[in-house]
C-alpha cells in the first residue's frame, strides 16, 4: 500500500468535490478503498457525499469487514450532530462546529478531521456556485460611509476595499494574500449574503 498515492487520491477527490464533480470525487475515494479497504477517511468522504461506501465491483460483505473506530460517547454525539447538519445542508454551521472540535476537543480524531476537510470542500463547492465560479466582477452595493452600519471587522473592510469594479472575484482572491483563500471566499460569500457585495 502506497500511503503517498492514497493521500493524493483523497486530496484530489476533495478538490474535485469542491468543484462540484461529486461522482469523479467518489470514484477516486473508491480507488482508495481498493488499495486500503479500511481507510476511514475515504469511507467518511463517500458517506458524507451521499454515496454508498462500497463500489459495485467489490464483493458484498466488504463493508461489514471494515471496523468503525470506536467513539467515546461525546464524540459519537458530536458526529451525529454533524451528520444532521450536513443532511440539512447547514454546511457553514457544520464547518464552524467541526473547526471548534478539531482545534479544542479532539485535535487527533481522524474522523473529525476528515469531516472537516469534506465540509470545507462542500463549502468551496457552494461558494463557487453562489459566486458564479468567481468569474464575475463584483460590485459594491453600499456606500463606504454606510458600511459602518454592518457588523464587520477589519478583514471584511480590507476585502471590500479590494473591489475595484473591474477585477473578477478570482482576480481579487489572487491579490489578497494576507488572508487564506478559503477564508477570503467565506467572507466574500458573507458579504454577498448581507447585500453589501453584488454581481
Amino acid at each position: 500500500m502506497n500511503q503517498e498515492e492514497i493521500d493524493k487520491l483523497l486530496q484530489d477527490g476533495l478538490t474535485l468535490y469542491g468543484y462540484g464533480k461529486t461522482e469523479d470525487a467518489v470514484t477516486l475515494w473508491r480507488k482508495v478503498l481498493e488499495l486500503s479497504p479500511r481507510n476511514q477517511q475515504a469511507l467518511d468522504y463517500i458517506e458524507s457525499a451521499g454515496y454508498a461506501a462500497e463500489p459495485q465491483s467489490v464483493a458484498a460483505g466488504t463493508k461489514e469487514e471494515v471496523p468503525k473506530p470506536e467513539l467515546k460517547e461525546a464524540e459519537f454525539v458530536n458526529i451525529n450532530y454533524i451528520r444532521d447538519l450536513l443532511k440539512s445542508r447547514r454546511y457553514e454551521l457544520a464547518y464552524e462546529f467541526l473547526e471548534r472540535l478539531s482545534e479544542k476537543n479532539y485535535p487527533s480524531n481522524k474522523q473529525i478531521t476528515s469531516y472537516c476537510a469534506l465540509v470545507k470542500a462542500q463549502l468551496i463547492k457552494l461558494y463557487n456556485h453562489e459566486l458564479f465560479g468567481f468569474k464575475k466582477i463584483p460590485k459594491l452595493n453600499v456606500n463606504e460611509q454606510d458600511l459602518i452600519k454592518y457588523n464587520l471587522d477589519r478583514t471584511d473592510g480590507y476585502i471590500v476595499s479590494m473591489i475595484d469594479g473591474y477585477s473578477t472575484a478570482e482576480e481579487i482572491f489572487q491579490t489578497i494574500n494576507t488572508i487564506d483563500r478559503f477564508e477570503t471566499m467565506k467572507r466574500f460569500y458573507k458579504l454577498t449574503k448581507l447585500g453589501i457585495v453584488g454581481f
Partner: protein
Amino acid sequence: MGKTIGIDLGTTNTCVAALLNGKPFVIPSSTGTRLIPSYFAVTNDEKTLIGVRAKRQSITNPQNTIFAAKRLIGRKFDSKEVQITKGKVPYQIVEGPHGDARVVCGGKTMSIPEISAFILLEAKNVAQEFLEDDIDGACITVPAYFNETQRQATIDAAEIAGLKVLRIINEPTASALAYAQKRGKKNELIAVYDFGGGTFDISILEFGEGVYEVLSTAGNTYLGGEDIDNRLIRYILDDFKKAHDVDLMQDVMAMQRLKEAAERAKIELSSQTEATISLPFLTETSHGSIHYNTVIMRNKLEELMEDLVRQTIEICASTLEGAGLKKDDIHEVILVGGQTRAPLVIRKTAEFFGKQPNRSINPDEVVAEGASIHAYNIVSPLPSNILVDITALSLGIQTKGGMFAEVIPRNTAVPVTKTRRFTTTYDNQDAVRIAVYQGNEKIAQDNEMLGEFVLSGIRLAKKGDPNIEVSFDMNSEGILRVTAKDADMGTEQTVTLEAASGLSNDEITLMKKKMMSLELELKEQ
C-alpha cells in the same frame, strides 16, 4: 503589415500609444485604465501579477512585489544607485553573475530586464487586444541621462517580451514631438518639466529646421509623486495615532488601504480644494473596530509638498545656468508627469519661468504619444521630423593617474566623431591601454567602463613624444567605435563597443522562451 506603438516605460507607470488616423491615441486596457503601474509580483500560490493587481498587493506582499525596476535597469550591483535603492525597497536586490543587479521574487532570482519585460509584455498585449492587430515594432522611451548600458538593457527587456525595438528615444524628445504635433512646428527653445511618480527631470530642447535637439538635461531620480504620497500617509498616520493611540504601521491591510486612499486624495486635490478620506473598519483594538474619516484640504497637501516642489525648481535654475540660458530664452514650458497636475506645481513653474506652462497635453500620456508618433515616422515612407539626441554623459578614456579624459563631452548631439591626441607616459613605451569610460566624474573608475583594448607597435621614443590619436565615432543608434592610431607609424587598432546590459545572448533567448510559456499561463489565468 501590423501596427507600431510607442511605450513610455516609466518608474511608476507605463503608458502605450499608437498613431490612429494621423493622431496619437493612448490605448486603454480592458479595465479602462490608461496607465499600467510598473509593478510585478509573485503571489503565495506562485501566480504572476502585473500592473494594477501587483500594485494593489504591494504592501501586503512586499518581499515579492517589484516596483521601480527602472532605477536598477542596466546598473551594476555595486553602483551607488543600486546601493541607495537597496536601502529604500522591501524586496531583495542581489548581485547577478555578470556583476549586474538582480532581484529575488517568489523565491527566484530574476534579472531586471526580465522584470521590465513583463511590463512591456502587458503593454504589448493591451495594444494588440485593442488594435486587433500584431505589433510590428515599438519606440520605447528612456530618460535622457540613461547611459548605453541602461539603453541596451531596455532593448533586451523588449526582446525578452517579444517586442521589436524600432528606436530607443529620450523622454523629453518624445514629449516635444507630441507637443509639436498639436501646436505646429516653430523654431523655439522648450523646457520639458517632468515630475513623475518616482523621478524628476528637466530638459531643455531646441526645435528648429525640423530638427529636435536636447541641449541639456538634469534631474533627481529619487524625487517624485510617491514622495508626496508618503508625506500624506505620514500625516494621516500621525493624525490617527493622535485620535486613537494606535500605530497603523504594523497593520499591512490598513497600510495598503491608506496608501491607496492617500494617492486618490492627492489626485482629487488637483481639481478640488478638499478631499474626503473614508476608511471604514480600518483596524481594530480590544474595544472593537475603528473607522477613519477625515477631510484633507488642498492647503494642507501643499504645505506637505512645498519643499519637494522647491527642490525641482532649484534643479531647473541650475540646469538653465549650466546650459548658459536665461529664463526669458525659453519660449515654452511643457509639463509632463502626473504630479504636474498639482496646482502648486503649476504656480511654481509659472513663477519661475515667468510664463504659464503649456498644459494642452495630458501630462501622463504625452511621452507615450510622442513615442508613437516617432514609431510611425520610422516605418512611414513620408518625410518626417528628424530627432537629434545628445550624449547625456561624457565619453572618454582613462589617462595617467586614473583621470578621465573626455573625448565626446556630455550634451553633444549624435551622430558625432571626435578625435583627441594623447601620448606615452614613459620612455620607449611600445603599447598603451585604451580604457573607455562613460560618465561625468573626473576619476575614470567612478564612471561606467564600456570596454578596453591595447594599441601596440608604438614608435619607440622618449615619453611624450609619440602622437596617439584616439577617435570616438558614435552613430545615431548609440553604437560607439573607438580607434587608436599611432600617427607617426600608422599603426591602428579599432573596437566597436556595444553596451552590455548584464545578460548574455543565451540568457536572453532562454528568458524569451520562458516568457512565451508564461504568457500562455497568464492568459489562462
